[in-house]
């Protein structure tokens, strides 16, 4: 599906800092990536690696204070979202860019009907009147596979199961036919069968509607099934970026390689035990001046302590931020 067209989203050098009582926390450090129209971009990284903060920074969803987007640019269809007024962001949020969050149990307002919550963006962004919005809301519920849609519009969130609520969230995010859907670990809080259903639904919706999707997860297994391209985040930075097949076939960054090892295999030889990556992800009080992964890296050498590696091409549309070359088992030159 990805083609060579202009990206809908082009993020350059994004930096987000939290100003906390105990000092600054550099949650996002010079993150750059782009998203092409209709593409599904997977974002992986363990919990705390800055995936959510990055995506929320794009569209001004972080509470400020404590968050501060320090630097960079976010071009959405050519318009810099970091430079526009709050009012303009509100026009785009929920209309051109839809969000689905992790926990469907708490993401819907408990005191309003599901119908009301779906109709809200329709009325605001598309200027529909109540009756028109109702019709469209009903269509949306059907689209995301909720049976008996018309009647269920009048139900409250607590009358839906977790999976159904996540479908409602997807319906809200897709209400105004957005160009980009950002799904932040949308299946993490669901059990496995429901997870699979939501994944199927997303694949199908993408075929039908053709929006670009950013799919955040800490589960590489999920990404393998749906993504066109993957970025791997660690310590608030992108450490590797590649088309999905390339990434799985030829992982370059030690962190990616470690992540891949943690996926349990169903077929083939059984490992003695599941691999885990030893250690904790860093909390950065200063902008990184050395490799963020070095404390947990098996291939660390002196340069890793002196310099923060930049991303550079390591294969066809594949880049990684590491001084070590897995092909030769030696440091890369230059």
């Amino acid at each position, binding site marked *: 599906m990805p083609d060579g067209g202009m990206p809908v989203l082009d993020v350059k050098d994004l930096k987000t800092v939290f100003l906390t009582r105990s000092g600054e926390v550099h949650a996002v450090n010079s993150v750059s990536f782009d998203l092409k129209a209709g593409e599904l971009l997977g974002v992986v990284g363990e919990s705390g690696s800055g995936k959510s903060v990055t995506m929320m920074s794009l*569209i001004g*969803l972080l509470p400020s204070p404590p968050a501060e987007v320090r630097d960079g640019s976010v071009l959405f269809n050519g318009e810099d979202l970091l430079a526009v007024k709050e009012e303009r962001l*509100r*026009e*785009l*949020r*929920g*209309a051109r860019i*839809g*969000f689905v*969050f992790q*926990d469907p149990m*708490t*993401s*819907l*307002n*408990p*005191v*309003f009907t599901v119908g009301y919550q779906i109709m*809200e*963006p329709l009325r*605001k*962004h598309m200027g529909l009147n109540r009756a028109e919005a109702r019709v469209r809301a009903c269509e949306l519920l059907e689209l995301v596979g909720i049976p008996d849609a018309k009647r269920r519009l009048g139900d*409250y969130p*607590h009358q839906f199961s977790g999976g159904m609520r996540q479908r409602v*969230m997807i319906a*809200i*995010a897709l209400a105004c036919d957005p160009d980009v859907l950002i799904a932040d670990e949308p299946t993490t809080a669901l059990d496995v069968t429901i997870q699979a259903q939501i994944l199927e639904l997303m694949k199908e919706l993408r075929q039908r509607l053709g929006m670009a999707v950013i799919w955040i997860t800490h589960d590489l297994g999920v990404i393998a099934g749906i993504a066109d391209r993957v970025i791997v985040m660690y310590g608030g930075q992108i450490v590797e970026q590649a088309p999905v097949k390339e990434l799985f076939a030829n992982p370059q960054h030690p962190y990616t390689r470690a992540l891949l090892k943690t996926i349990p295999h169903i077929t083939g030889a059984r490992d003695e035990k599941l691999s885990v990556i030893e250690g904790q992800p860093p909390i950065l009080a200063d902008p990184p001046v050395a490799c963020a992964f070095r404390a947990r890296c098996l291939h660390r050498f002196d340069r890793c302590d002196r310099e923060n590696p930049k991303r550079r091409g390591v294969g066809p549309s594949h880049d990684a931020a590491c001084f070590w070359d897995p092909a030769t088992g030696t440091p890369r030159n230059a």
Partner: protein
Amino acid sequence: MFTYTLRRLLLAIPTLLFISLIIFLLLDLAPGDPTANLPLTIPPEVKAKIRESLGLGQPIHIRYLLWLKQFLIAEPLHVMDYMFGTDWAMGMQRVISWQTRSPVADIIAQRMPQTLWVVGLSYVIGTLIALPIGIISAYRQYSWFDQIGTFVSMIGYSVPTFFTGVLLIVIFAVNLGWFPSIYDTTHVVTDWDSFLFQVRQMVMPVFVLALYNAAQISRYMRASMLDNLGQDYVRTARAKGMSEKVVVLIHVLRNSMIPVVTVIALGVPTIFGGAIITEQVFKVNGLGQLLITSIYANDIPMVQTLTFIFAVLIVLFNLVADILYGILDPRIRYD
């Protein structure tokens, strides 16, 4: 919801009967003699007669049943007779105040308006002030507005009303002479000037009580708003592109009001309790003052009736609070 309400109302009957019994027994235990205030020149035989005429000679269960009959049957019938000009009561014995020898209900009816005006109005004003303060304080947590609000609430809540009341009297009535220091209950509003006078004499007692109420309710409102502002659904509302006004005043407020409305409803009976102390300070002769003077005078029927009415109101507004909760929160279903 309807069957629930009905069930609760039915359940309230035994509860209230039990409460009335407890009140009756407690007051019976209390030391004191209704004839103690009579002049000493009255001979003991006459005193004994008076005591008998007050019904004090009978055993306690007879007196309790008699009181129940008077309170639950005779009084309502008299009220009906008064309202519709009928004659259902047929001279049935009413609950009589020992102190004034007139029916307790009549005295309460006389005192009610003062309390409703002063204490009720202060409750309404206090609530109306408290809600926006709570909302803004929470939305701008730790801003100077919030800091001042917190400070004033702490003062309003912790400084007793007899102190603020007296302080206001000293400053505004004695030194500045802006407001009268004593509430004149005989004052009748007939024209613009007398209306202004009424407003002026209400300002201080209403302010004192409103400050206290506002302090309390604004704290609840703030805490409830803060609870909700951090919820995930707020982020969802923002992600939908809703304006801050909609996010705060529709999504968050609607959720935050649920516990606050309950607190407000539960506080209503205290209005009728009359802010006892404040009524004393400003000499408002409302229900609170009535209760105090009746206690001093050992006027047991009056104390009994007032206490029981408070009990009824408390039970009733507990029910009201629960019903409101059920209406406001769709997750609560009683049936």
